[in-house]
């Protein structure tokens, strides 16, 4: 098949879907809209599969399908093509995006069937897929940036989808603006890289990277990558720009699954992996990334332990898992980052969709205090959610185990890593096990707290199919990247993942030989900690339901702080937003209206006053005029005589 045709179909099919649904924005028929949108993404998925198959057919070192449609911007030595490339990294991404995307579209058909703006909803969703594909397929930073902003835009639209609710609209705006902060940094990063290397093309950039690592903090690569990373913290919800993601749960739940769990938020990780040779040469940036990643992983997990909103818990979980991915990037385990990205896409999309199914069943109730014992009402949802739960807390052989273990091992073992980072990661894993179990317990197990009048029911088949598919993927997804040590144990299973990514990933230099016993010990530790923590949670929330609140009371102010998300939002408001708005008002009132404009008035008054002064000389009294003549005469005569 012609690659450029396939590529066009891949990219444009969702766009066409967007246009069709966008033009029928007034229609309410969810089946038509949903069919159009889902098939658009599915067509995209099929062409993605074709492309990847072709890619696999190529020899490993030249696995790259590049298509350039046209030259986008050409000014002096800046030449940016609307060029797209499928290689090992983007192949994974397009499969995830279109694959998981189709499932979520399918889920949405059932989930959104009662909504009036369903055509609009699907249009936005398709537009998102389109932009996400631009992001991952772009062969240069600028095209990536197009998608980068585009997905932010769609996220804005979808979070504020129910725009009549003020808070939801505000959440959308918060997401966009926070992302925009990152985008601004991304721009700066692009400028630095372009002015240093003279190109924005990924392959050219990666080829131009100097051989020696840059140790200076203010060197071009360090600064450039640091700015790009700030951009990534915006998109991928890391400290300090993670604040938008929990609020983004205001959007419809499938949106949360698609955008805020599986695809968009991983863009930052993707970008770093794309530029991994560049990042490798900036150890300072790598250190920052690792620290931020680990800190986010832990912090978000602690907040996740205290939340009552099912989606908020998942949102903080997402932030935390993204932290793992950044931790992986920071320690040079780019392959592990991508691996976790993929497994996370499966199990987190699954859990979000599961929560959507629950919310759907509970008639838009999201508070887990009003759920419980839903196992019997929602058997399929429960079972798939269970798979997701096992995956995320890292129980072998579920997918999450392999990817998370790889990250933890690398954070310990890699020369860029540090035992502290490993400890933070392990702590995060422990906390994750706790809050996810808590979620399971409060939602599906234990005693029912469902209010009277609510009759939970299992979701329709369009919603359960995606759950099942994702559930299967959550289980087996990790098997393509089984760590060496485990595969050795099991009898030399190939690590497909590593081989696949190998040409694109720059090896961490000075990597010591792996110590098998140490690795086993670490695996045992993390799995053990997770299991213990899960059991504790089970004990607290199912066996002795009252114990949790007692613990919370015992923690006192610490619990308060965590429950209120460390007051970060409030701090941002107090430190930045409110002063900014107030300052702007002051600026407008005191500077603009009462100073600059007044200055012009003063200028006018000076002119007017001068006029009045001269006018008073012209008072109509002829004798006065004659006097002026006389004065003139005297003056002129005096001057003449002085000479």
């Amino acid at each position: 098949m012609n690659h450029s045709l396939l590529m066009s179909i891949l990219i444009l099919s969702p766009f066409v879907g967007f246009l069709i649904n966008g033009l029928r924005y007034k229609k309410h028929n969810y089946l038509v809209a949903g069919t159009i949108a889902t098939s658009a993404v599915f067509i995209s998925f099929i062409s993605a599969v074709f492309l990847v198959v072709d890619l696999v057919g190529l020899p490993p070192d030249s696995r790259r399908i590049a298509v350039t449609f046209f030259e986008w911007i050409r000014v002096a030595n800046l030449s940016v093509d609307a060029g797209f490339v499928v290689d090992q990294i983007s192949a994974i991404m397009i499969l995830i995006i279109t694959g998981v995307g189709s499932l979520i579209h399918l889920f949405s058909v059932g989930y959104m069937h009662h909504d009036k703006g369903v055509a609009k909803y699907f249009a936005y969703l398709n537009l998102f897929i389109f932009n996400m594909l631009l992001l991952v397929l772009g062969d240069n930073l600028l095209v990536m940036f197009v998608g980068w902003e585009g997905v932010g835009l769609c996220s804005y639209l979808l979070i504020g989808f129910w725009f009549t609710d003020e808070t939801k609209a505000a959440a959308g705006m918060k997401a966009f603006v926070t992302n925009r902060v990152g985008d601004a940094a991304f721009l700066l990063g692009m400028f630095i890289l372009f002015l240093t290397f003279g190109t924005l093309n990924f392959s050219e950039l990666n080829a131009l990277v100097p051989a020696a690592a840059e140790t200076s903090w203010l060197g071009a690569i360090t600064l450039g990558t640091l700015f790009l990373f700030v951009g990534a913290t915006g998109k991928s919800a890391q400290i300090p720009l993670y604040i938008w993601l929990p609020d983004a749960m205001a959007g419809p739940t499938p949106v949360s699954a698609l955008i805020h769990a599986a695809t968009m938020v991983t863009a930052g990780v993707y970008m770093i992996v794309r530029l991994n040779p560049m990042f490798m040469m900036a150890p300072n940036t790598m250190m920052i990334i690792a620290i931020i990643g680990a800190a986010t992983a832990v912090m978000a997990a602690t907040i996740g332990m205290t939340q009552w909103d099912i989606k908020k818990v998942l949102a903080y979980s997402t932030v935390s898992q993204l932290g793992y991915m950044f931790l992986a990037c920071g320690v040079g385990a780019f392959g592990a980052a991508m691996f976790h990205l993929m497994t996370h896409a499966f199990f987190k999309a699954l859990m979000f969709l599961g929560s959507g199914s629950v919310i759907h069943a509970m008639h838009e109730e999201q508070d887990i205090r009003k759920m419980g014992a839903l196992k019997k009402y929602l058997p399929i949802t429960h079972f798939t959610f269970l798979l997701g739960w096992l995956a995320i807390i890292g129980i072998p052989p579920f997918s999450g185990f392999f990817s998370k273990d790889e990250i933890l091992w690398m954070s310990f073992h890699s020369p860029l890593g540090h035992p502290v980072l490993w400890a933070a990661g392990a702590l995060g894993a422990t906390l994750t096990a706790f809050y996810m179990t808590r979620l399971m317990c409060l939602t599906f197990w234990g005693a029912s707290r469902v209010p009277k009048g609510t009759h939970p029911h299992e979701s329709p088949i369009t919603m359960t199919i995606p759950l099942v598919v994702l559930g299967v993927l959550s289980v087996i997804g990790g098997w393509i990247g089984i760590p060496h040590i485990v595969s050795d144990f099991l009898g030399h299973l190939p690590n497909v993942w590593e081989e696949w990514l190998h040409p694109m990933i720059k090896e961490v230099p000075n990597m010591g030989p792996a110590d098998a016993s140490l690795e086993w010990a670490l695996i045992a530790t993390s799995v053990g900690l997770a299991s213990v923590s899960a059991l504790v949670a089970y004990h607290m929330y199912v066996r002795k339901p009252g114990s949790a609140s007692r613990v919370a009371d015992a923690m006192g102010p610490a619990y308060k702080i965590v429950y209120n998300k460390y007051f970060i939002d409030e701090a941002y408001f107090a430190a930045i937003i409110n002063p900014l708005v107030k300052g702007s008002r002051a600026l407008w009132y005191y500077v603009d209206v009462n100073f600059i404009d007044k200055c012009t008035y003063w200028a006018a008054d000076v002119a007017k006053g001068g006029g009045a002064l001269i006018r008073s000389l012209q008072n109509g009294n002829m004798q006065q005029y004659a006097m002026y003549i006389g004065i003139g005469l005297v003056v002129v005569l005096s001057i003449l005589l002085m000479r």
Partner: protein
Amino acid sequence: MQSIDIFGQIGLNHYLILSALLFVTGMAGVLLRRNIIVLLMSIELMLNAVNISFIAFGKYMNQLDGQILVFFVMTIAAAEAAVGLAIAVNIFKRYKEVNIRFFEHLKG
């Protein structure tokens, strides 16, 4: 400085200074008086002062042109007096006053 004895000999300067003083007197009238008729009279005074200069110069420079100019000045002075007085009459008819204050309509 030709001589200390300004009383002993009459020269051109004497006439010119006389003319200047007369002119200034007229000017004082123009500047200070209220009555428009007196104003006109003062103007006549100034014109006469100028005439003296003309004649004196004519005399001392031995030319008749000065006298011709005086001739012209007189004619114009007479005409001016006529027009001025006519205007004064008009003003008087309207305001019953000959005060110059009533001419203050040329305000800027």
